[in-house]
């Protein structure tokens, strides 16, 4: 095995080794020695190819004959669209017939004696390498790059820069730079909290202990939001304005701030997970835990939505609420910190809005 070394091998070469015994004698298959076995194999191959052709025709018939809505049930699977199943099965048989037929043909009737090809080192010959060296050198000198460094430098500079006019407009045009979008929501002082998607305001007196509401700001609820603001704004609003409203027994709330920002035990928190932004959709009424189904970050509602398990770091931001003169819940203010996933400039808005801070 040492014959292909071109660096010192670490193999113990001194020891004697077994010699490669060469190819074992060829063992003929049945079809090689028994003509009737060969004929049988041939019939099998023809049968498979014929099956394929029949299945192709069956596919076409099914495509035009079967009602695409036809439903039926298959044992072990349940109710299915039979049109889809028949198309898939006939297509599968049509393809498998060809495949299995060809493989069976190759394995039974085609020659099964292995052939040998010699390998050759991929390395080019020394002549080739010498010639390449000469060509490169001639090219370099022939173009006078060795003498005229100004050409070299300017050509290098030009080639280094030409792509920028192509790349910069693409990259810079991709999106608006971030400004205040991540720090603001559509919550404003005095906006009513509306049940989504019904769009009903919430009277504080009607909220029973332990009830949970999914809430959006007034004017951003349901289909109306799409009609008034357009789909893009409405989707952005859904992504960041969503709030979960829960009425807790005020005595189990451990945080004074949480109690102050709520109203008689009714507290409102951003529903956007502070991990990667999934809606924190699961509220466990007994434990007062909020669980994000995406990555299982768990927030404790009695502890100002502090993280008690999972990959999130920060508590959910609380929305300060109160009631208006008619007794409906309203926002006292917007969120006082950015909602949703962390980002680099989160604690220093000035990095994004230098002109405004």
């Amino acid at each position, binding site marked *: 095995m040492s*014959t292909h070394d071109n*660096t010192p091998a*670490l*193999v113990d070469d001194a*020891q004697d080794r*077994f010699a*490669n015994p*060469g*190819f*074992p004698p*060829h063992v003929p298959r049945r079809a*090689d020695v028994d003509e009737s076995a060969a004929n049988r194999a041939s019939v099998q191959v023809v049968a498979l190819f014929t099956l394929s052709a029949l299945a192709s025709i069956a596919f076409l018939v099914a*495509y035009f004959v079967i009602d695409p*809505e036809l439903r039926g049930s298959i044992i072990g699977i349940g109710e299915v669209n039979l049109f889809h*199943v028949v198309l898939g*099965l006939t*297509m599968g048989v049509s393809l*498998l017939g060809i*495949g299995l037929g*060809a*493989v069976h*043909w190759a394995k039974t009737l085609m020659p*099964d*004696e292995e*052939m*040998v*090809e*010699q*390998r*050759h*080192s*991929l*390395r080019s010959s020394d*002549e080739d390498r010498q010639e390449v060296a000469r060509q490169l050198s001639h090219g370099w000198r022939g173009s006078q790059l060795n003498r005229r460094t100004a050409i070299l430098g300017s050509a290098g500079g030009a080639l280094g820069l030409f792509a920028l006019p192509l790349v910069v407009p693409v990259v810079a045009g*991709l*999106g608006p730079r*971030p400004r205040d979008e991540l720090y603001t929501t559509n919550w404003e002082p005095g906006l009513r909290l509306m049940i*989504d998607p019904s769009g009903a305001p919430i009277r504080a007196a009607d909220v029973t202990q332990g009830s949970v509401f999914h809430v959006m700001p007034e004017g951003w609820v349901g289909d109306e939001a*799409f009609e008034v603001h*357009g*789909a893009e704004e409405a989707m952005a609003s859904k*992504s960041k304005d*969503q709030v979960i409203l829960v009425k807790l027994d005020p005595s189990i709330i451990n945080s004074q701030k949480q109690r102050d920002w709520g109203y008689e035990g009714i507290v409102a928190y951003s529903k956007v997970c502070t991990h*990667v*932004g*999934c809606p924190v*959709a699961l509220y466990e009424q007994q434990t007062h835990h909020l669980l994000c*189904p995406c990555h*299982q970050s768990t927030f404790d509602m009695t502890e100002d939505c502090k993280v008690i398990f999972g*990959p*999130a*770091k920060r508590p959910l931001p609380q929305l300060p609420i109160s009631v208006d003169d008619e007794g409906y819940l309203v926002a006292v203010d917007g969120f006082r910190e950015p909602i949703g*996933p*962390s*980002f*680099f400039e*989160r*604690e220093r808005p000035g*990095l*994004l809005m230098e002109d405004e801070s």
Partner: protein
Amino acid sequence: MSTTSHVPQGAHHLRGDDSGGEATTTVTVPPYSSDQGDKDAKFPKVIGPVDERTGLAAAMRFGLGKVFPDHWSFLLGEIAMYSMVICLITGTFLTLWFVPSMGHVTYDGSYVPLKGVGMSEAYASTLDISFEVKGGLLMRQLHHWAALFFVVGIALHAARVFFTGAFRKPREINWVIGVVLSLLAAIEGFAGYSLPDDLLSGTGIRAMNGFMMSAPIIGTWLTFFVFGGEFPGEMIIPRLYIAHVLLIPAILVGLFVAHLILIVLPKHTHYPGPGRTDDNVVGFPVMPVYAAKAGGFFFVVFGITALVSALVQINPVWVFGPYDPTQVTAGSQPDFYMWFSDGALRLLPGWLEFSLFGTVWSMNIFLGSLLLLPLVWLILGIYPFLEAWITGDRRDHHVLQRPRNAPVRTAIGMAAISMYLVLALACINDILAIKLGLSINDLTVLFRISFFVLPVIVYFVVKRLCLSLQRHDREKVLHGSETGRVVRTPEGRFFEVHEPLDAYERWPLVYYDTPRPIGETVGPASDQHGVRRPLAAAAGLRRALSSFYYKDSISAVTPAELAAAHQHGEHEALDGPEVAAAIEQHGAPVSEAPGDDYYRDGIKAGRHS
């Protein structure tokens, strides 16, 4: 032309049949007895005019005569290749109806439960493909299943290449191309299943938005540029679409062609077997056997994909509903090849996020997403070069290794797979918790611990298994295979007759060489006066790693050892069991050999005697 001395000599003159006493290269070519060629075969007339203008015949001669070795594990890469082709075919079908737009429409199709519901055009057109276009659902299912088979095929193929050492010189470049292909396949898959804009895939995009934001310094800008503003915007689906149907497939196909060329150039590797060497390739020619088998296999893969697509539902987007950022379902998992990344996100604890000078560094997210993905593929990509550096092996290798004959590599590979599996399982921790009736918190903690502990256990177990299998091979060569025939001696003792292996059976068990740690070949670290040789830090590290790789290696049986064993065997037959018992004690018990010095000493002894 004279050559300068520092240019390594080409190996041509060392190869071939005239290399003298080197036994490994004396290979007899099998007599091709059943030559079915027709002596009066005529060059097909149709090709004539084309050949005059293109030289096609020479290319055909090269192509049709190519020899490919046969082994089931070589089909894994073919599964990936054919699945890619199926994706291209079915994907083209889907583009004719899919509308990559986030524009808002109200659904008015034949799927009653969603009638009147507001949704994006992307989602609505996906529903139309599923319900209105005849055969559209079958194409969607074929596309999705083939995409999964594509990634599975790549993963299994990569594992085969890794564990058999097929990535070694001269195939390192092709390994790197394959690694890039697998990364692109995963990204392509992610982009693809994000397109329908259903609730599940939208949740995936929402998470992707969160990952990107976690990138230090550039995260916010990156996210706004990719999404064309704040989440969700109306740009992300069109952009993923063009990446999915044009940019990534173009690169995929281009690299795939390069991958194939680099398979053909050095010719395919083959498994060790009688007659197979590093200088030849043994297998079937393209015309007709390989063409029939490989071509037939394409239809087999396509056919099975069609059967699966007919019977097993995948990604029923109409069940999930349109994407709504305020909704999510429990049990939201990405396609399986993204599990490990999402699993890492579930395991990374929140305290990894910190603030520095008022800037936020979300390592709890960044490590598991933006860093983990490139990191995994970077490690994969550099592994061949790392191993070559550690082992100092710069030779060309065309005969594959059996995984047991590279115990440390096999153990490292299995340990890495175990880490991957822990992360992947962590991604379905909520499903597991329900199905197994366990606490999701306990499961998560268990996975956190397993990520660090399991690879270590797996490493040692697998390495020991490999060494045991190697010992088993030695045992088999030295004492033959068990026949099941029990013979009773005149004294009344019983023993089982072992039949010696013939040369053909023996060869795969003894062909391999046993590298030794660099430290052993370049001499001790201190000279005869006890002065430590100055050693660069890198060289020291290399020595340590080389020792880690090779110190336990078990060498193949040599003819001398076999002769010695046979001698013992004859004694055994002649002198009865007492001598046999004495001989058994002659060797050290296997359990005593942590470094397996027994075998190395045995070799030395064999050589001296």
